[in-house]
């Protein structure tokens, strides 16, 4: 079930009504969390619970075996990684691999080598396999003591707020919290409410009302060549994906806080970053951090020659792109990001531009946004051809016909609200600063009530969260 569905509302009411009783005793607490989380995930398709059990089971026992047979730690780590990546390959990338293998064979003049298997990836598979792998890797590195309790392990892995679309919570961040009796403080409850309201507003009001405009643009690729239309559509796409995913993360964190658990921040206004590197430090932070710690630093990061450091960056960023989806568009998206990050690293352009008085920071923010709008086309397009068509329209400057923009008008108020929100934060009106003002503290409940009313009545058509399919 999705956070913006009616069944989830009932699920949440039942869960939070029973939680104060269930949390008192440790084994009850873990059992309760596992049962509810499995129900939550099984709602998508109960057969996928087998995958969750398989992925988690391998890592749980591999970690225990590492403790018992330290001399075989490396073999066990490989076993765990192969099992998890194998599941990911089988359920997320198999269609991509078989299709491309056959295409390659055809290019070489041969026949199709293998039957193409159409498999729809189970919800959240990229998130929980990575979370599960991080557990084994941390045990392997000696950063974490493996748990003996299977219940506790699955309570960690399947905790429903973060199960299907992150944030990816590391075992080092959550295992200790699962041991104590969680008791949300008054402050945690308030912050939880704020995150939930902000999350639902971003998802239901902003992302879901921008989505039809983006869909409309995607369907108009073959017959609209107006440059302003495509720039506006690209801007809407960027904001839609941001609000969709940041909204999900906010809701997940809010639900966690109401349980008494703290999850890491996953989005920190990425469109206000003054460099592309900064953007990735603020976008889907837990996944970026995962790739940084386990891939980039695993390859020795930047503590090596300039050439190798650049190579490590490219591998990491292309893999990060490919993690998002089994399509060449995501590989190209990752490659473009790698090129731009390398240029940024070599030229130090953001640092130089930021020195321009008054306007420097603003110019940097706009430049980063432009880069993301251009490369983001590959993120959204169903095929490379579609992406190239859109890019051609954006960059050809052949037609400045403003008439097609009319078809996007209905989404413009929501785009303005989203941009204004970011502009306010850019000007220093972020929540931490505002909290210091007594007037804001008094007004905030009214603001939240208004946002709840908007989330109910101005919601868009309830689409699934974009990141579910990753």
């Amino acid at each position, binding site marked *: *079930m*999705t956070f913006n*569905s*009616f*069944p989830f509302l009932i699920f949440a009411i039942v869960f939070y009504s029973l939680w104060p009783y269930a949390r008192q005793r440790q084994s009850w607490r873990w059992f309760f969390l596992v049962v509810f989380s499995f129900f939550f995930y099984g*709602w*998508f*398709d109960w*057969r996928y619970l087998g995958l969750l059990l398989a992925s988690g089971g391998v890592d749980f026992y591999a970690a225990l075996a590492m403790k018992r047979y330290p001399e075989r730690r490396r073999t066990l780590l490989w076993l765990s990684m192969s099992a998890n990546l194998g599941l990911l390959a089988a359920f997320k990338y198999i269609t991509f691999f078989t299709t491309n293998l056959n295409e390659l064979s055809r290019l070489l003049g041969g026949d199709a080598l293998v039957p193409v*298997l*159409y*498999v*729809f990836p189970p*919800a959240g598979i990229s998130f929980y396999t990575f979370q599960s792998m991080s557990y084994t890797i941390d045990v392997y590195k000696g950063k974490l003591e493996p748990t003996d309790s299977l219940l506790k392990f699955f309570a960690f892995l399947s905790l429903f707020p973060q199960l299907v679309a992150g944030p990816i919570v590391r075992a080092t961040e959550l295992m200790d919290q699962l041991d104590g009796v969680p008791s949300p403080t*008054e402050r945690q*409850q*308030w912050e*939880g*409410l704020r995150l939930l309201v902000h999350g639902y507003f971003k998802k239901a009001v902003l992302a879901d*009302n921008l989505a039809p405009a983006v*869909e409309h643009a*995607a*369907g*108009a*690729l*073959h*017959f609209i060549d107006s440059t302003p239309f495509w720039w506006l559509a690209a801007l809407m796409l960027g904001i839609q994906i941001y609000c969709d995913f940041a909204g999900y993360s906010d809701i997940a964190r809010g639900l966690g806080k109401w349980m008494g658990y703290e999850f890491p921040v996953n989005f920190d206004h990425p469109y206000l970053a003054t460099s592309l590197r900064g953007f990735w430090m603020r976008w889907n932070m837990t996944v970026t951090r995962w790739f940084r710690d386990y891939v980039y630093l695993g390859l020795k990061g930047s503590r090596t020659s300039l050439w190798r450091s650049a190579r490590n960056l490219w591998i990491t960023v292309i893999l990060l792109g490919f993690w998002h989806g089994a399509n060449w568009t995501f590989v190209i998206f990752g490659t473009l990001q790698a090129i731009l990050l390398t240029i940024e690293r070599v030229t130090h352009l953001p640092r130089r531009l930021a020195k321009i008085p008054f306007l420097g920071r603003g110019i940097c923010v706009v430049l980063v946004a432009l880069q993301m709008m251009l490369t983001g086309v590959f993120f*959204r*397009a*169903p095929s490379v051809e*579609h992406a190239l068509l859109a890019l051609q329209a954006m960059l050809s400057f052949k037609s400045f016909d403003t008439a097609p923009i009319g078809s996007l008008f*209905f*989404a413009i*108020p929501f785009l303005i609200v989203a941009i204004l929100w970011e502009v306010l934060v850019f000007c220093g009106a972020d929540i931490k600063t505002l909290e210091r003002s007594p007037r804001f503290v008094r007004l905030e*409940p009214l603001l*939240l*009530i*208004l946002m*709840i*009313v908007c989330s*109910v*009545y*101005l*919601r*868009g*058509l309830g*689409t*699934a969260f*974009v990141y*579910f*399919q990753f």
Partner: protein
Amino acid sequence: MRLGRTQATLLGAVFAVLAAGWMRPVSSVGGMPAELFFYRKMLWHHEFDVVCAGDSRTLLGVSPAAMRTAMSQRRIANFGFRLAGYSTRYAERAVELIDPATPRPLMLLGVDPHSLTTNAARNLDQPSTWMSLHPWRPGHFNAELENEFLWLAAQHPWEIRLQVQLGPLLAFFGRITTLDFSQLIQGNTRYPVMVAHEDGWFSSRFKQQGLERAVRFIPAMYAGNRVSPHVVAQLLKAVRRMQWRGIEVYGFRLPTDPRVTQLENQCSGFDEAAFARDLAAAGGKWLPFNDRDFRTFDGHHLGEDEAVRFSIALARKVEASRERPRNLSGRKP
């Protein structure tokens, strides 16, 4: 008992939401709430004598109530969905709506080129069906237009039931669309602009629109997405199965603007005469209509008044071309 800040805000929000619900503008969709309307259709089962299937043209263009005025059968349903395509599953689901006890069951297939394309019918007939059925929108991230039936069929049955049971309550919290606002601002005299009827018809009162837009997106719609021989073969197979079950099948094409019809045939490769012959060979009957006899509001769809006129004409044609039931001596009664 003293309420904390969080609880007080939540309580305040409940009151504010209820107050806003009372004060909200009239929805642009009259009759049943639009979302409930489609969910209800998914629960129909063995309760009709006549079923009309098809995509948005059927959804907007066939009024069962109007048909009843010219037909002997009373229980008629419009099982149209936006962008529905003739997948095997859709055709079979349409058959499930017919009451097995009805003496002369009838299936009316609204056929247009798009409903016979692979994109319109896709996903449900792929080999890994169990992997494709998901409670979120399949192909949500793809540029192809979506089949609304497919999306609803992928919902959890329990979710559909819940949605229907709590329909009136959910309608109170129905979303206010930008269309609602724009219609209010423009002062549309025929507000609400759409009405969802109990019998499955979605009548439309939109103002007359220019043809330019209607024509412009046709080439793109059929680019790489022409009428699929596979989908046509599947539909004809379904028609034969309907015949075996004793269901009379009629096919028809909803009237569209002549320019739209011509361009659609050209871009999609749809040959209406050939399809009519194939349908007849499969045991069905094709009912031809003249585009010039009816006026669409956007080149593709019939407005409320024209839909009523068309439905009566359709019902009369069906009645006229139906074989009369024979008595045991083989003579017409």
